[in-house]
C-alpha cells in the first residue's frame, strides 16, 4: 500500500511536462510575465494601471494631510502671553479674540517643498494629497463606466446578432442614433437630468453613452461566431438559445470584449476629467479635472496646472498602452477600432 502511494506521488515532483499541467495560478503568472517580455510597452501600461489602482485604494494611507485641510500661515502677531491671559480673563478675550491671535490667512498657492511635495492649491490645500485622492474618482468612474458599457453592450450586442430580424433592426437603429450624437453633449444632457450629479450618477451616464460602441463590436464578433459549427452542433442537440449564447458564443467573443473594456477605460477617465473641467462634474468629489480648472488661471503657479493634467495623462496612458498590447495579443483584427469610445 505504502509502496503504491510512493509510485503515484512520484510524477508530481519533477518539472511539468507542458504548460497546461501547471496549476492555474502559475499559468496565469507565467502568461503575465511573458506579456511583459513580448510587449514591454503594454507591460509598462499594466504597471501604470497597477500603480493608479493601488494609489486609489491606498489614498487614505499614503496621503500626507487631509486633502481638504486648509493650511494657514502662523500669525506673526501671536503672543502666547496674551493668549494665556485671554483664557482666564473675559475682558482680555473680548479685546483679543483667540482667532485673531492664533490664525493667519490661508497660505494660498505655494511652490512644491518638503512639507508639500506638489505645493498647495489656491485654497491652501496640499496638492499631493488631493492628487492621490483624485485617483479614486478616476478609477471608480473609468472602470465603473466601462463595466456598465461592456456588460450592457454584451447583452444587447449578443441578442441583436443572435436573433437578428426585427430585434436586430431595433437595436441597430438605436445604436446608430446614439453614435450619430456627439457623446459629450449627450453626456451634458444626461448629467443635468438630476439635480445634484454625484460620481455614481456620472459613472452611469458615461456607461450608457458608451454602450453603442460596445454593441457594434460585440455584434460583429457574434455574427462571425454564429456561423461556426459548434453553434450548429449545440442547436442540433437541442441546447437552448440562452445556453448556446452563454456557454458557446460568449467565451469566443471574450477577446475583443476584454480589449474594448481596457481601452475604453482611458476614454471614460478623459470624459470625466472634461466634465469636471467645465464645472459639470461631481461638486464634492476630488477630481483631477476640477483641480486643473481651479489652477489654470494662476499663470505664475504652473505646478497647479501641470500636475493634475499629468496625472490624467498617466492614467489614460496606462490603459491605452495595456489595451493596445492586449489587442495585438488577443485580437489583431480590432486594430484602429473603438479606441475612443465615442468621445
Amino acid at each position: 500500500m505504502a509502496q503504491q502511494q510512493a509510485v503515484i506521488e512520484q510524477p508530481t515532483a519533477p518539472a511539468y511536462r507542458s504548460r497546461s499541467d501547471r496549476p492555474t495560478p502559475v499559468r496565469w503568472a507565467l502568461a503575465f510575465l511573458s506579456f511583459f517580455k513580448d510587449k514591454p510597452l503594454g507591460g509598462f501600461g499594466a504597471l501604470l494601471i497597477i500603480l493608479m489602482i493601488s494609489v486609489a485604494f491606498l489614498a487614505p494611507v499614503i496621503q500626507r494631510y487631509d486633502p481638504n485641510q486648509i493650511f494657514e500661515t502662523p500669525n506673526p502677531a501671536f503672543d502666547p502671553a496674551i493668549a494665556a491671559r485671554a483664557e482666564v480673563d473675559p475682558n482680555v478675550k473680548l479685546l483679543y479674540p483667540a482667532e485673531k491671535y492664533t490664525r493667519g490667512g490661508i497660505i494660498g498657492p505655494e511652490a512644491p517643498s518638503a512639507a508639500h511635495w506638489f505645493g498647495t492649491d489656491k485654497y491652501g490645500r496640499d496638492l499631493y494629497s488631493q492628487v492621490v485622492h483624485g485617483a479614486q474618482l478616476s478609477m471608480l468612474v473609468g472602470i465603473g463606466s466601462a463595466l456598465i458599457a461592456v456588460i450592457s453592450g454584451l447583452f444587447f450586442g449578443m441578442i441583436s446578432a443572435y436573433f437578428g430580424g426585427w430585434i436586430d433592426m431595433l437595436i441597430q437603429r438605436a445604436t446608430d442614433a446614439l453614435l450619430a450624437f456627439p457623446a459629450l453633449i449627450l453626456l451634458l444632457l444626461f448629467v443635468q437630468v438630476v439635480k445634484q450629479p454625484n460620481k455614481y450618477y456620472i459613472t452611469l451616464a458615461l456607461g450608457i453613452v458608451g454602450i453603442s460602441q460596445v454593441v457594434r463590436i460585440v455584434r460583429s464578433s457574434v455574427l462571425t461566431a454564429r456561423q461556426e459549427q459548434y453553434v450548429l452542433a449545440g442547436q442540433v442537440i437541442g441546447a437552448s438559445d440562452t445556453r448556446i449564447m452563454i456557454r458557446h458564443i460568449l467565451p469566443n467573443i471574450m477577446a475583443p470584449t476584454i480589449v474594448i473594456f481596457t481601452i475604453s477605460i482611458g476614454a471614460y477617465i478623459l470624459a470625466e476629467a472634461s466634465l469636471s473641467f467645465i464645472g459639470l462634474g461631481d461638486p464634492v468629489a476630488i477630481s483631477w479635472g476640477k483641480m486643473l480648472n481651479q489652477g489654470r488661471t494662476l499663470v505664475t503657479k504652473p505646478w497647479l496646472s501641470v500636475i493634475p493634467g499629468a496625472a490624467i495623462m498617466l492614467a489614460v496612458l496606462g490603459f491605452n498602452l495595456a489595451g493596445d498590447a492586449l489587442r495585438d495579443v488577443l485580437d489583431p483584427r480590432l486594430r484602429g477600432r473603438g479606441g475612443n469610445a465615442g468621445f
Partner: protein
Amino acid sequence: MGRYIIRRMLINIPVIWLIITLVFFATSVLPGDFVAQRIAAANPLGGQDQAAQIAQVKKDLGINQPLPQRYVNYLWHTVRGDLGTSYRTRRPAINDFKAGLPYTLQLSIMALIVGLSISLPVGIISAIKQDTATDYGLRFFAILGVAAPSFWVATLMLLLVVRYQWWTIDLIGQPLLWQSPLASLKLYSIPALAGGIASGAAVMRLLRSQMLEVLRQDYIRTAWSKGLRQRVIIVRHALKNAMIPVLTIIGLTIASLISGNVVFEYLFGIPGIGSRILTAITARDVPVVQAFVLIIATFVVMVNLAVDVLYGWLDPRIQYS
C-alpha cells in the same frame, strides 16, 4: 449610386427621429424648468400668485399642454422646418445656431488642418522607417498625444503664452479670421493646435499600421520591381489604399469638431456651437437645445454617408447595394 444615397438617407430618418425623441423627453424631465427659474428670479420673495404667474408664462410660451400633445406639436413643427423659438430671446432658435457657427467652423477647420498636416506625413514617415529611432520617437509622441487631455495641452500652451507674454490674446473681442486676421490667429492658434494634436495623433497611429499592411502587399512589390519612383509608390499605390479605414476616423473627427469643442470653447470663451448648447442646457432653454441637437445629428449622419461614398471612390471593389 444615386439610389444608394437616397436609400441611406431614408434609413437615416428613423435614426434622427430617435435622437430628437430622446432629447425631447430628456429635456422634459430636466429639473427646475425655465419658467420657474424666470419667475423665481423676477420675484425672489415669492408671492401668493406665483402659481398663476407660472401658468400665465407657460401659456405664453405655449408649453401649458400635456407632454404627449407637446411632443406631437414638436414633431409637426419640426417636419415643417420650424425649429422653435428660444425661451430666452423669443427669437427663432436657429438664429442662435447661425450666430455660433462661424466661430466653431473656424476653430474646427483650423484644428483639422493642423491635425491632418501633422498626421499624414508623420504616419507615412513612421511606416516607411519602421522600427528605426525616428519611428519610435514619432510613435512615442503619438501615444502621448492620444493620452494627454487636449484641454490640458491647451491650458499649458496658454500658460506659456501669457506667462512669458509672447503675444496678447483677445478673449473678450473674439475676433474672427476675416474681421482681424492677426488677432484671430493669436486667439485660435492654441485651441487649434491642441485639438489638432489630439485628433492627429489618433489618425497617425491608424495610418501607420494601415501603411505597414499595404506596403507588404504583392502589388507594391510589383510596383517596386517595375522601377517606379518611391514617391509614386507611396502616394499613388500605398497611401490611397491605406487611407480607406483612416477616412472613418477623419469623418468622426470632423463630426465631433463641428458639434463643438465644448471644452475649448469653454476654456477660451469662444461663443461657438458648443458653448451655446451648454448655456442653453443650463438655462433650460429647451427649444434651442432641441434645434441644435437636430442640426448636429443631421450633420453627423451626412458626414458618415459622405465617408461611405468616398470609400467606394477610393476602393472600387466596394459595391453599393
